[in-house]
């Protein structure tokens, strides 16, 4: 079948039709031959038998009368009767004893002939092929009866040549007819196959041209069609979808619930009446039109995205996922990273981002299999000359030039982070101011003790009293302890005021809480607010900055205090109560601050984290405390939940991922801050 598959459709049709016709012809010929020839022979035989019978009837009398001359004239008459003379070779009559009574041979009677075809007893006749001289004849023998007695036998010799001649004539005519039919079919099938295949080969040529991108190929497919794609409104207006063709568009239109714009009559899409070939041509034309339309749109879209890529305000890279090489970069990337495009292309993306980028790439490669984009906030990148700066990185997998690649969009957040840090720092300084009264009181205590101790020693000396060694040691120890106490407070303050570096450290949640309490605890108790601590032991570490967490806790405690004091105004004599709890659960570390203040009204609960929102009296708060608190907590991957019963109090619960969990999160590349060994940007 292989060679058959390779030949053209035209020839396939042609050959197939021809083969079928030939087979039918041969079958008919064979059938006809069998029917016609045997029929003809039979008929001729019957005619011979009839002649023989007629002679036997009429010649019976002559045989009995032994009037052989009459018999002879009879058989000659029968033999020469019109066209019978061509058919009958001879006639002869035998008597009962097989003696030849008369015959039509012009030559002496060939002897063996009389016994060549005997009529057996009981048979009316017998037919047998006999050779007489050069001729072959069908010898038909019929018995001649007179009453019940057989008086002789009539033999009629039918010329086989004559019969063959007739058959040959018939065969010639029949074959001629069949040949004529075949020739006609040959011609017709040739025409049909050409009719079917010629548009197909034309379509093939056209689509070859189209594949090569030659869209200006002359589409000679239909008559009377002015075929210019530029006439279509959807071609000029790329935003206008063509609903005739665009199944996808139809779907999206349905989902968007748009009715869409539909041309009342499409300029191009039409179905002419006609056979399948015409319909195929129409359909093909529509397809070509559609391809041209969408190819143009694709070009436009490509140009659009190219210009987005080029003019985007943020650097964008295309990075090969397997080799980490930069495949493309936009001008903004050159500007920010200070490499020229030539330097960027073909360079490993690692050069820009070092280890952080490697981590990112690995996890992206994992994520790519799940498909979807990954967001990396605050990643350290390097400009030319290894100058570090912070970026947010957004990576999405794509297929680029057949390779597995990703689009990396990068936002320079250095300035933002600086501003952030400044804001946090400013807020901290403000907090410090708010704390100052407490701090002064707190430092005054040890100072007072020291002062009194030294004055006491002076007093003793002035009064010339005896000072025992124990007294002095006692005093010295006491003074030393008090100095330590003051130093602790000052250290705490200094740590609090220090601008935190960008690198996060491992923090035991209890530490900042204790730190804050050492500064403000006393002040709170003076203000009739008890702070109860239920600190969990052996808490897992979290990632953050001790002093920023202190700021967070201070803010929360400060707010609790303000709330309680507000309630105290209406309920003098009440005692404030703040319960601070820390505990670990499900890979997170929690810190909750429950106060017995007035609670937070539902109406403002959603607003309290907004910047500049405050319920405090004018001048008492800027409304930045909680906003900054929230910012810090979010930075550490934490959450804040508020549970408040108006009139009963408020509970702020903070939760942070523990370090192990944090790392797990980093691995999953969901919400990450990756810093392990980076240069701290600032420390005072």
């Amino acid at each position, binding site marked *: 079948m292989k060679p058959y598959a390779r030949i053209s459709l035209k020839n396939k049709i042609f050959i197939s039709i021809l083969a079928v016709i030939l087979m039918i012809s041969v079958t008919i010929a064979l059938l006809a031959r069998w029917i016609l020839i045997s029929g003809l022979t039979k008929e001729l035989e019957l005619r011979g038998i009839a002649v023989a019978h007629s002679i036997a009837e009429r010649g019976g009398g002559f045989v009995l009368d032994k009037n052989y001359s009459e018999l002879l004239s009879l058989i000659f008459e029968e033999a020469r009767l019109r066209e019978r003379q061509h058919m009958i070779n001879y006639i002869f009559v035998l008597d009962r004893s097989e003696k030849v009574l008369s015959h039509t041979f012009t030559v002496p009677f060939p002897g063996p002939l009389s016994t060549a075809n005997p009529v057996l007893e009981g048979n009316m006749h017998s037919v047998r092929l006999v050779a007489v001289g050069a001729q072959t004849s069908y010898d038909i023998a019929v018995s001649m009866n007179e009453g019940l007695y057989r008086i002789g036998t009539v033999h009629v010799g039918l010329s086989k040549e004559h019969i063959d001649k007739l058959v040959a004539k018939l065969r010639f005519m029949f074959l001629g007819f069949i040949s004529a039919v075949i020739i006609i079919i040959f011609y017709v099938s040739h025409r049909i196959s050409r009719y079917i295949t010629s548009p197909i080969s034309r379509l093939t040529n056209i689509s070859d041209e189209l594949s090569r991108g030659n869209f200006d190929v002359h589409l000679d497919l239909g008559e009377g069609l002015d075929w210019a794609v530029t006439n279509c409104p959807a071609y000029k207006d790329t935003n206008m979808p063509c609903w005739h063709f665009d199944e996808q568009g139809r779907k999206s239109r349905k989902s968007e619930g748009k009715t869409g714009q539909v041309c009342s009559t499409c300029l191009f899409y039409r179905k002419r009446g006609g056979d399948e070939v015409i319909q195929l041509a129409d359909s093909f034309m529509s397809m070509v039109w559609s391809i041209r339309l969408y190819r143009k749109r694709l070009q436009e879209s490509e140009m659009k995205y190219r210009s987005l890529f080029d003019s985007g305000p943020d650097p964008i890279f295309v990075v090969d996922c397997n080799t980490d090489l930069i495949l493309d970069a936009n001008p903004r990337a050159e500007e920010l990273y200070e490499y020229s495009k030539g330097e960027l292309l073909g360079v490993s993306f690692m050069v820009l981002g070092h280890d952080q980028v490697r981590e990112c790439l690995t996890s992206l490669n994992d994520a790519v299999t799940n498909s979807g984009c990954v967001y990396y906030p605050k990643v350290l990148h390097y400009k030319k000359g290894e100058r570090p700066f912070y970026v947010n990185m957004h990576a999405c997998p794509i297929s680029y030039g057949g390779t597995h690649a990703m689009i990396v969009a990068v936002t320079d957040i250095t300035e933002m982070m600086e501003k952030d840090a400044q804001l946090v720092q400013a807020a901290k300084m403000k907090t410090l101011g708010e704390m100052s009264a407490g701090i002064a009181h707190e430092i005054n205590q*040890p100072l007072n*003790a020291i002062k009194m101790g030294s004055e006491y020693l002076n007093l003793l000396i002035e009064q010339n009293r005896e000072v025992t060694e124990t007294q002095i040691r006692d005093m010295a120890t006491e003074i030393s302890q008090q100095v330590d106490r003051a130093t602790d407070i000052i250290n705490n303050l200094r740590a609090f005021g220090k601008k935190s570096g960008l690198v996060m450290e491992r923090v035991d949640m209890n530490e900042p809480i204790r730190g804050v309490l050492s500064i403000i605890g006393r002040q709170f108790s003076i203000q009739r607010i008890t702070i109860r601590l239920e600190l969990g032991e052996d808490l897992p570490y979290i990632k953050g900055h001790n002093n920023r967490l202190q700021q967070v806790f201070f803010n929360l405690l400060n707010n609790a205090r303000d709330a309680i004091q507000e309630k105290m105004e209406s309920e003098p004599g009440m005692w404030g109560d703040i319960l601070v709890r820390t505990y670990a659960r499900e890979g997170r570390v929690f810190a909750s601050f429950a106060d017995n203040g007035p609670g937070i009204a539902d109406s403002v609960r959603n607003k309290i984290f907004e910047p500049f929102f405050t319920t405090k009296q004018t001048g008492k708060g800027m409304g930045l405390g909680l906003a900054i608190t929230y910012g810090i907590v979010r930075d550490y991957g934490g959450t804040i939940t508020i549970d408040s019963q108006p009139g009963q109090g408020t509970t702020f619960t903070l939760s942070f991922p523990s370090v192990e969990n944090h790392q797990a999160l980093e691995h999953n590349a969901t919400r990450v801050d990756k810093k392990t060994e980076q240069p701290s940007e600032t420390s005072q």
Partner: protein
Amino acid sequence: MTQEKILVIDDEKATLKMFRLFLDVYGFDILTAESGEEGLEVFDREKPDIVLTDIKMPGMDGIEVLQQIKKRSPATEVIVITGHGDMDLAIQALNLDAADFINKPIQRQSLEQGLARAKERLKLAKSRQNEVSVVRQGQALVIEIQGSVSSHSEPYLREAYSKAQEAGVQRIVLHFDPNTSVNGAGIAILTQLVLESEKDGVEIVMAGLSENFRKVFGIVGLTRMVQIFDSLDEACA
């Protein structure tokens, strides 16, 4: 001589310890309490003559302790201890009839003086001496003031003032004994007198005021209206 009972209330153990040492040297019978509540308890039990109390304390604070003590025994000398330079609280305490105030960190000198003044006042109160007397000295009329200047002192002061007016002097010297204590009401009366004297065309000057009360007078604005001299002689000159 019987030792005066003194009660010290402070939430700082270290401070209490120091007070105990100090006051022992000064020869007081010392009682201590670590909170306002405990302080009142001890006060009720022991009836001390002098109470030293910190103002800023958890729970019952010094102001409340002061009020409670003054309610139970107005004669008790209550000296409040204030945070460094916190004059607002000091004045608030004075308004509530605190006898004196001492700033933290506590200087020996101010503690000694404060205690000495308190002792003096107690003595005066016991002898029930007239707290205000008028003496003519040169061109000026000197009103000698001892003990505590409070609402009780008003009639005496008024009497002395009218005497001075009668004498027809141009300058009245308010000469405070170094142990004098002036409470809020006292300050109000003094201010009133000064304002009246301006109207009457008489100049009032002050002398002998202890350091503490100079500060207080400064804060309430009296020093802007009257001249204050260190000694009586300077004031009369």
